[in-house]
């Protein structure tokens, strides 16, 4: 699953964890705010 924010920015690829009924990011294409990767 491609995961976008509402501005159309690709954030990550994620898988559905059926057991927890949750989305698990498998490949984040952004860093958390304050991280050392400036992703705009």
């Amino acid at each position, binding site marked *: 699953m491609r995961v*976008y924010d*509402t501005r159309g*920015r690709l954030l*990550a690829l994620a898988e559905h964890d059926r057991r927890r009924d*949750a989305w698990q990011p498998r490949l984040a294409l952004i860093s*958390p705010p304050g991280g050392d990767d400036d992703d705009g």
Partner: protein
Amino acid sequence: MPRRRRDDADVHGLMNVSKARGFTSHDVVAVVRRMLGTRRVGHAGTLDPLAEGVLPVCVGRYTRLVDVIADTEKGYYAEVELGVRTTTDDAEGEVVERHDVPPLTTERLDAALSAFRGPIEQVPPAFSAIKVAGRRAYDLARRGDAPELAARPVTIHRLDVVRCAPPSLVLLVVCSKGTYIRSLARDLGETIGCGAHLTRLVRLWVGSFGLEDAVSLEEISTAASAGQLDTVLRPADDALAALPALVVPEERLIDIGHGRPWPATVSGAQSTDARVRYPWTAARPRRARPPA
């Protein structure tokens, strides 16, 4: 404020590079690194030096997509010479044996090919980059100590004859990650009973990266010099278009950045149909810069 590495240029995206014969895949990455001024460059799916065609190259944050793209289906145009076995299973190696090619009727050829369609077990070439006890197989093979490599599961989705004019045989191969076309040529030769090797290989596509819109290193260099890298960089959406999409609210950004799961019930709009394109991706030109 974290310090940015000096060589860490603010360039992110995917390139569909047309690799010329004679370059290694790493040569291409090294050239792109120099041209873009960043070390964050990686290729998805190695092409042998003698092979040419599509080599997806990931730049900046999208280097994280290397494995995802390398996992996608690949298409090849392959020229095979029947009746000649070589040490490397391609034209780079020394000729080991020559045999007459038996008469090839359509039925006999199709029977031979059908053994390789679908899921198969394939032994990689002795001259391959596979590691054996910490050493590259080709290093061992060059010393005359070719290792016995274990067969690996691969899938040949399509195997069609483009032209058959013995000893020349031209094939269209559509296959999974990890398939060696040199091995396919070698094993097909054994099945026909005369041996064979690969004489030319062109990769036609890797997933959504097609040769028809691949760019040469010269074109990338020209674009970089003119400050027009956006003409050779593709948005990641294009390469991943086969996957369905999900839109999440802004507050999920922190969870995602930290790799934390979030409840599916609060995910927001989603589409399980990979063909659904959101307006912003549909409106963007094919080679535009990805979202900043």
